[in-house]
Every structure is written in structure tokens, then in C-alpha cells.
């Protein structure tokens, strides 16, 4: 069954080669061998330029212009108005006092979400990694168990949990069996916030578990044997040997998960739609809805909000770079 497939792939591979060989060889003769590297870089750089570098610049133009036109030529210059509109509040601790109250709610939601989701996820990932690092049978299988949800699409993840958490779902049925009252999990604001954190931990912790596990496995086993010879208790082994040696990996994991959490959107959007009200609306959803889902499309406001988010991400990325470097050096 695989033979025709392999043959087809090989044929495709060869055809693709022949297709490009003649123009590439010609181009090589044209530019000379010393500049051939640029030929190989060209397609990638073209895409980068068009969809990454150019947009970075354009973002600032959008952020400083108004109206709902997509073409920059049709957008009047408004200076810092988009920013000041986003940032104008009488009391920064109370989103209701802000001109863009949904934005501020999203900011606060994102803040809480990031702190809680990252905190608990790292804790669970660490415990799981420590357990998977023990000498247990079926190691590979169990690693797969915890990793499996990472591969599921956010929409699928959200639908799975929506089905479980619905009013007449299996979760409420279980509660009633225990004699407890059923709850409208995704309609109650506090529970909904709990569940978006829970679901995003469920969906992503396998990835961080895997990285922490790799970090644990990089610790040489003779260190543990030496500690055992020294009569160290399990707790002391953990606190004085495992944790310090795992710290560099830990820092990378924390920063990486912070960066991801700030941009959380997909599964939450499908699970709760940001509701009830805007109780689970995070910053990226605000940007999406402001710029694309609502009429009029406030591109300027969305761009301004993205730039504010970019500033946060930039700080986090710099932290990551420092962390990666100290890990590489350590």
C-alpha cells in the first residue's frame, strides 16, 4: 500500500528538482557563486518582508490614523488619539471609569489569567515531569498521555469541554449523583474564568512537562547517586539538587508560557466567546473584535492595542533571551 505512495513522492521530488534546476543553474551563472546564497535566501526574505517587517511599520501608521477605511491613503491622521482613547481612565483600578471599558476589562482579565494560568500550569507540569522522570514502566506511553491534548486544535479542545460543562452535561450529572446542586459553569462569571484557566492548562501543560522532563533527564544520575551516598533525604535531594539544576530550564519554561498566555485567544473564544458579558474577554480577543468582528472596524484602535501588547511581549522576550543565554552559559 505504501509502495505507490513512496514512488509518487519520489517522482514529485525528482520533478521538483528538474523544474527548478535549469533556472537556478542559470541564475547561479548570472550572479556568480559568491552571491548564490542570496538566491537561496530570497523567497524566505520576500515573505518576511511582506508579512512581517512591512506590517511592523504599517502598524504604527494604523495606530496613528482614524476611520474604518483599510487603505492607509483614506485614513486621516489623528496623532496619539487612539492611544489616549485607550488609556483614558478616571480611575485605573476601575474599568468602568475608563472610556474603553472593555479594553481595560480585557487588560485586567489577561493579567489575572496570565498569573493564574502560568502559575498553576508550571506547578502541575513540574509535578508531572518529576513523576514521569521516576523509574516507572510504560514511560513513553504516560509521556504521550499528558502530551496528547497539546496536539488538539483549540477549537476541538473548547468543544470537548463545552460538551462536558454544559448544563445537562456529564459533569453536572456527576455532581447530582454526589448530591450537589448543578451549576451553569460557563454562564457564571467566576466559574467561567476558572474554566478558561483550567482548560488552557489542560491543553498546554503537556508541552511544558516535556521540556521540564528533558531538563530533568539532563541532570546526570551520578549526582543523585552521590547524594544517596551522602544520606540525603528525598526532600533535600529535591530542594538542594534537582531544583537548582533544573532552574535554567524552569526560567525558560516560565518566560515561554508567559509569552503564550499574554496572547491566549483561540480556545477561550470558542469556549466562552469572552462571556458572560466580558468576564473572560482577553486582550487579543479585544483586538480581534475591535478590528475585525465589529462594525465599524476600528483598525486604528486595534493597532494601538496591539502595539501596547507588543511592548509587554517585547519585555517578556528580552527576559527570555537573557534566560536562554544564561542557560546556555550555565
Amino acid at each position, binding site marked *: 500500500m505504501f509502495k505507490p505512495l513512496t514512488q509518487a513522492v519520489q517522482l514529485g521530488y525528482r520533478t521538483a528538482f528538474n523544474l527548478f534546476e535549469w533556472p537556478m543553474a542559470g541564475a547561479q551563472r548570472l550572479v556568480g557563486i559568491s552571491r548564490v546564497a542570496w538566491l537561496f535566501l530570497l523567497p524566505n526574505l520576500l515573505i518576511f518582508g511582506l508579512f512581517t517587517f512591512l506590517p511592523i511599520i504599517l502598524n504604527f501608521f494604523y495606530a496613528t490614523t482614524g476611520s474604518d477605511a483599510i487603505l492607509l491613503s483614506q485614513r486621516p491622521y489623528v496623532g496619539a488619539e487612539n492611544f489616549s482613547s485607550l488609556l483614558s481612565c478616571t480611575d485605573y483600578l476601575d474599568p468602568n471609569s475608563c472610556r474603553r471599558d472593555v479594553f481595560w476589562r480585557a487588560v485586567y482579565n489577561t493579567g489575572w489569567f496570565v498569573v493564574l494560568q502560568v502559575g498553576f500550569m508550571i506547578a502541575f507540569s513540574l509535578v508531572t515531569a518529576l513523576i514521569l522522570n521516576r523509574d516507572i514502566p510504560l514511560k513513553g506511553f504516560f509521556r504521550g498521555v499528558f502530551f496528547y491534548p497539546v496536539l488538539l486544535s483549540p477549537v476541538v479542545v473548547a468543544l470537548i469541554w463545552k460538551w462536558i460543562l454544559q448544563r445537562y452535561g456529564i459533569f453536572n450529572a456527576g455532581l447530582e449523583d454526589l448530591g450537589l446542586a448543578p451549576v451553569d459553569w460557563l454562564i457564571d462569571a467566576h466559574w467561567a474564568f476558572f474554566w478558561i484557566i483550567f482548560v488552557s492548562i489542560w491543553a498546554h501543560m503537556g508541552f511544558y512537562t516535556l521540556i521540564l522532563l528533558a531538563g530533568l533527564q539532563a541532570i546526570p544520575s551520578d549526582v543523585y547517586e552521590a547524594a544517596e551516598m551522602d544520606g540525603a533525604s528525598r526532600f533535600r535531594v529535591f530542594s538542594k539538587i534537582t531544583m537548582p539544576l533544573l532552574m535554567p530550564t524552569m526560567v525558560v519554561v516560565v518566560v515561554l508560557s508567559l509569552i503564550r498566555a499574554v496572547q491566549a485567544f483561540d480556545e477561550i473564544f470558542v469556549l466562552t466567546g469572552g462571556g458572560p458579558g466580558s468576564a473572560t474577554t482577553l486582550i487579543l480577543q479585544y*483586538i480581534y473584535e475591535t478590528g475585525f468582528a465589529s462594525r465599524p472596524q476600528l483598525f486604528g484602535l486595534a493597532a494601538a492595542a496591539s502595539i501596547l501588547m507588543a511592548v509587554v511581549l517585547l519585555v517578556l522576550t528580552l527576559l527570555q533571551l537573557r534566560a536562554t543565554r544564561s542557560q546556555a552559559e550555565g
Partner: protein
Amino acid sequence: MVWSFISRTRGRGRFDVTDWLTWGYLILGIVLMFGPVLWVAMSSFKTDAALSEYPPSFLPFAPKTVMVEGYDDPLPLYEITAGEHRGEVLAQIRRIGLNAQMVDPQNPAEKINVKIGDRAPAREFAMAFENYSKLFERFNFMRYFWNSVFITVVATIITVIFNSMAAFALAKYRFRGRTTVFLLIIATLMIPPTINLVPIYLVVNELGLVNTPWGVIWPAVATPTGVFLLRQYMLTIPDDLLDAARMDHASEWRVYWRIVLPLAAPAIAVLIIFSVMWRWNEFLWPLIVLTRSEEFTLQLALNAFQGDLQTSWSGLLAMTVLTLLPITIVFALLQKNITAGIAQSGVK
């Protein structure tokens, strides 16, 4: 046998508290990680009637029905648990208040009144495959599936070719500006597309790619992750090999395509896995670019259906299962490679 297998501890030969906790945690892990998916898979085989049953049953049971002479529709069967007809199986015609008007299928002429508390629905094991067939007949499932496959396959091929070409140039040539280009590409790791949504949309719009699969494919094919991953791997390919090929009359393109690409196969496999995962699961960007439903990917279709109140859970669940199936199969086959690849490169 089983016990000695499970109780294999760190050579201490004793099954102590931490081992109990370990196994408790692992079993909880299986339930928590696989349980929800399994529950959805089970539910997707239930009929609409069984889906609205509360409390739900684990296996797909459907209420038994029977055709009774003199009635147009099949009637649901009930077991009688109390009263004078206790033990009999009767079909229900209609409910009237606290009583149900029932009939014995063997004797359709006689109507029997039973208190509703005295009867329980008779059920049978029934897989509702029509949930799936319905998808193909009514929901245009193949269309969305094809859109997703097209985007995933084409984007992955382009990603692998473009990224490996750039990686080859950065790993195997010395030229002025190499470091600059490399740093520039790495820097884009810091700029996730989510913060450039508006201007990227403008570019896609100007190129006339809105509501085409290409609008989803092009913006993300030049992944810095891929370039970095492949470059690091290609650095380990000895330069002598390339020189040997050049002495063998190979053009630079031939050196790349016939020598470097096959030798970078392990790294390319990792990139393919990532790319397939990214593209199959991608949501926000397609959501912005694809607004016409015939262009929807599976993820968008799922999202659209779940927002549509007319849609029944039966169709939605079946579609969810079909969407997670390809990734699950790939994962089951390549679990080791995937986890090893991710652990090594630290990217997702």
C-alpha cells in the same frame, strides 16, 4: 507478574507511599487527559434522543421503539416496573398528565393507562452512525475537510522548501551580511503575527488574497522557527560533502536538493510535524481572512456550527471527532518522534 511489573521501583524492592502516589497521579492523568476525548467520541455515536438524556449514559444507548399496527410513527417502548402490568414491555402512545397511555405491541387494540412513575424506558445499544453520514450529506463536510487538507499540505511543502533554502544559505555559505540576515530572522521570533493582525490583513487584502486559501498560506510560510531548526541541523553536515559534490559537477541547486536536503531529513521531519500541527489547528488568522463559508477550514466550520443555535450536538460532536482524528492517528504513529523533536528543539 503484573504486580511485580507495576511495583518496579528504584531498585529498593519496596512499594512505598510515593509509589502509591505516583500511580494514583498517573491514573488520574489518564482519566483527565483521555477521558474528555473518549467521552466526546462516545457521545458522537449517540442519537439526538440519547444525547438529550439526563443523566447521560456512557455507552450510546437509544430508546427502543417499535412499529405498532394502527400508528404511523414508531412508538417508544417502556418496561413497567410496578402496578398490575409489572414486568411487561409496552409501547407508549402519549402522555397525559401523570399517566401514560400505552399499548401492548402484541395486542394493539387495547389501550392501557400506566402511571409515569411505574415505567422505565427500554433501551438498546445503538451506534448512531448517521451522525457521521449526515455530515457528508448535509454539512458539506468534505468541502471544509478539503480546504483544511489543501492549506495544511501546500503550506507545509512551501514552508519546508523556503525555510530549508534559507537555512542552507545561512549554514553553508560565507557572505557579507550573513550574520545580519540571521539575526533579522531570529528577531522575528519576537514578533508574533498576533501583534500585526491589522497591517498583515491590509497586505493580504492588497494582494487580493482575502477569502482564498492563499491568504492563509502565504503570511506564515517563512517561519523563523523552521529556519533556525534546519540551520542548526545543517551546520552538522560536513562541508567536505558539499565540496565533493561540487567536484562531481553538481550545481549549487543540485548540492542543495540532492545532498543537503536528504541529509537534513531528520530535522525536516520535525519541521513537517510542526507545520502540519500549526496549520491544521490554526484558528485566529483563518478566522480573519476567510469570511465566506465555502472557504472555511474545519476549525472555522466547527466554530461556526457551535455558534449556530440550529445545529444539533450530534452533528457537532461527530465533526469534532473527525477533526481530531487525523492528528490523533499521526500522534499514535509518531508519538516518540514528536515528543523527542519537541523536547530537543523547545518549540511548538
